[in-house]
């Protein structure tokens, strides 16, 4: 039910998004232009709007699923990859690589994943104190994130001070100026990671139990944690490499999902993918239209709306846990 409703909204929004902006065509024209004969308006839409829409869909799905995975691993409802610095680490690594070695563009997600993993390892290592207390992970993550954002902005200034800014040092994520190359790159890396997440979904449910219990069921909890984390880091890193840092999406969508479909990850993860795509596309489309002809970054919009929502979630935390 909830799935169908969300999917219907997603399809509706998709067609709405396709048709909003300075060029407008009718639905029939759009289909004709896409599948039957060449139409300059439709071609422009195909080149300019389709990539950003598809990126919003895949990127949103990736971030939302990653958020759900992190929340399972850290057994904490306020764990979000953008809060604990993973997104920033990935975006910084990818921006550095693209800025310094533009020819490595297509493999920039690999560097982003490296940056994400490195950040993840740093945050976990610094938080480890005879166990992983979730609050400590989050506090350390916030500090690491601040450093990374600072570094990123500093380097951004240096780069743009020199010549034209080659690599996009987009810390507040934006979907403007995206091409089919970006789409291919995102889809290429995100699809296998999403499939891996779905395969792990039944195992993620185990993480809702105490570690001792999981272990006595014959499952190595640490290995499971690392595996799930790796998938999550991969999703976030690639999404951040392509879109920049989008805050709060990975936090809010899983919460929404738990309210609507429950905490069983076999249902929750697919739902997160669907509604993450919806929310990201909604943010991007709204950002495009709200102050037309100017654009507001999806990342900025998400932060403005997400901040208050985050506080609401923090305050109502006990609804889910404890």
């Amino acid at each position, binding site marked *: 039910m909830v799935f169908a409703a969300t999917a219907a909204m997603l399809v509706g929004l998709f067609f709405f998004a396709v048709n909003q902006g300075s060029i407008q065509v009718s639905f029939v024209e759009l289909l004709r232009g896409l599948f039957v004969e060449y139409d300059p308006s439709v071609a422009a839409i195909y080149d300019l709007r389709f990539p950003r829409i598809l990126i919003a869909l895949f990127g949103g799905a990736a971030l939302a699923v990653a958020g759900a995975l992190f929340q399972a691993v850290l057994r904490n409802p306020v764990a979000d990859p953008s809060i604990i610095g993973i997104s920033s680490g990935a975006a910084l690594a990818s921006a550095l690589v693209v800025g310094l070695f533009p020819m490595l563009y297509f493999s920039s997600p690999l560097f982003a994943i490296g940056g994400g993993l490195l950040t993840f390892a740093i945050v976990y290592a610094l938080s480890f104190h005879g166990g992983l207390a979730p609050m400590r992970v989050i506090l350390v993550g916030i500090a690491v994130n601040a450093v990374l954002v600072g570094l990123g902005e500093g380097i951004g200034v240096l780069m743009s001070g020199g010549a034209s800014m080659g690599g996009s040092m987009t810390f507040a994520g934006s979907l403007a100026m995206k091409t089919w190359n970006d789409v291919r790159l995102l889809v290429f890396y995100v699809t296998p990671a999403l499939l891996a997440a779905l395969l792990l979904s039944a195992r993620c449910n185990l993480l809702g139990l105490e570690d001792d219990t999981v272990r006595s*069921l014959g499952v190595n909890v640490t290995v499971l944690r690392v595996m799930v984390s790796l998938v999550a880091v991969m999703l976030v890193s690639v999404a951040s490499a392509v879109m920049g840092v989008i805050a709060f999406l990975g936090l809010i969508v899983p919460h929404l999902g738990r309210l609507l479909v429950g905490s*069983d990850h076999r249902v929750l993860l697919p739902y997160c993918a669907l509604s993450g795509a919806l929310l990201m596309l909604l943010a991007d489309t709204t950002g495009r239209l709200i102050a037309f002809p100017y654009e507001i970054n999806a990342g900025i919009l998400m932060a403005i709306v997400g901040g208050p929502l985050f506080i609401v979630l923090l305050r109502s935390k006990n*609804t889910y846990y404890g």
Partner: protein
Amino acid sequence: MAKQSTPGFASLCREPDSLESSRSLHSSHESESLLDLHCQEHSDVSDSVYRVRDLSFSYPEATVFEGISFDIARGKITALMGANGSGKSTLFKLLTKNLKADAGSQIMLDERELSAYRLSELARKVAVVWQQNTAPYDITVRQLVAFGRVPHKQPFQTLSHADEAAIDEAIDFCDLRDVADRRMRELSGGQQQRVWIALGLAQQTPVMFLDEPTTFLDVHYQVMVLRLIRRLNQELGLTVVLILHDINQSFELCDELIALRADGTLVQGSPHALVNEDFLRDIYRTDLRVGCIDEQLVVHAPL
């Protein structure tokens, strides 16, 4: 009325010798499939599930055990007891492979080194009910008990009919059928504890460990849980090893005691043979009185 060491349990309360020996030999062979599954594993093996020799263990700061040896009898209920800090939780974790014993120690589970068991193999042999438990906020009893099948499945396998049957039986045995589709958080503390036991039972292991299963419960539920544990042993033939925080409950429930002294040594035996005031002073370093109500040993602390 000066302190005097009491005679052993046998002279205080009439020793029900014959009863004692018959009880442990899986009194009921009438119960069906769960029983069969549990008992298959017993048929042609020795009387000890665990054989522990020269067990040593130390934390970086302190040595807990130095070369202790004991057996845990098959088909019996054994309690680990001792004062706080005597190492009963440590021993519990050593036996369930949650801590690694020092080199030179030997812990044999069914004639095989415990360290040689893979985690999943061990989980088909030994179920553990921990004191500290957490469940997802909206999980139902049945979904939780279903986790007990995890050790029997490959990571991506779904539940078979046999699994479903095992889950149903565990739920029925723990008297949870009426609440099977309710959410955990709607249940009382006593019901929740039975769900955790049902989860262990669904693992269909011949051995079950329980860590203070009656802590946090009021007397009504404590008795209910203790009766359930006794039925696990008597009707299903499970070997039960547990820590109980109430000494009287240990005496009432258990066939065997493994009592740890503060210095890391231990004494082992039936409550009848062991318990008297000297023994209690030895273990708890406190003067306790031992009496008898309805042929059952009772300890109380004069204040």
